[in-house]
């Protein structure tokens, strides 16, 4: 067997630069993975629509130009510590989120369109919502979208990083 060095990514380690724990990694009595305080210390995050008639795939949100319905679509951010199918997922605690916006770029043919919509942070239920207006989606098309989350620490994360999140706006 060839022995070489590898670099194995790990999670639940706070990246704040402070000393982390006292136990050795893998020790039965080690405390590795139990003292992380960074709310965004996992690798994989997805945005899941909450109930209320929202679809999931292939489009997370499907509506017509000028629609203001659903009036307040909500999304939860689910964190995974590894491959999705192996994990139950943890709802991201939004109490340390300062701002959240939905950004989208139109991918389909026709005039280009970018949009940015400020979201309401429901830190009690850990849901991001948007009070829709008729001006939210004024241009029909298929949008590539993501949630840009700014934490109170000043750090930023865009979700989802892996899975594409799409919005379909149909012309009337």
């Amino acid at each position: 067997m060839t022995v070489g060095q590898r670099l194995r990514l790990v999670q639940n380690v706070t990246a704040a630069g402070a000393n982390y724990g006292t136990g050795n990694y893998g020790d039965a009595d080690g405390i590795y993975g139990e003292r992380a305080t960074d709310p965004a210390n996992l690798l994989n995050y997805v945005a899941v629509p909450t109930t209320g008639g929202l679809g999931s795939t292939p489009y997370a949100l499907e509506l017509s130009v000028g629609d203001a319905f659903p009036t307040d679509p909500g999304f939860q951010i689910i964190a995974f510590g590894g491959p999705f199918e192996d994990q139950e997922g943890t709802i991201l605690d939004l109490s340390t989120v300062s701002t959240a916006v939905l950004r989208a770029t139109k991918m389909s043919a026709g005039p280009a369109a970018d949009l940015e919509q400020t979201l309401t942070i429901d830190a009690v239920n850990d849901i991001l919502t948007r009070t829709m207006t008729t001006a939210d989606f004024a241009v029909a098309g298929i949008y590539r979208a993501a949630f840009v989350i700014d934490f109170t620490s000043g750090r930023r994360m865009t979700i989802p990083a892996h899975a594409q999140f799409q919005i379909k706006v149909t012309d009337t």
Partner: protein
Amino acid sequence: MRLDPQEITLYEGDDLPGFAAVLEDNAGNALDLTTADAVYIQIRHPDGAVTEDELTITGAVSGTVTYDWTGVQTRTWGAGVHDITARAAYPADAVIAPADRNCRLIIRPEIGNV
């Protein structure tokens, strides 16, 4: 969808997720960093340029290191696939991991420049 655990994906301008890793051999034995002078992260960008910075040793015996890249850095480095290696510098020699260069940072282009 199974994700390669040795990849971190984020967008230009993102600070998170951060970098945390264990230096170890293929048998899973952690590299003891107790006597290391320092551990450096080397990020090779698509254009061939290399960024090197010192890692924080969060667990010397466990071989655990972390790095806080910033939104300014990820925007400067730009969208693309960036190779990551770590170099543990000892008084007499150095250890570079991973040997097979399978650790990557994938930066996606920022969405909606509005």
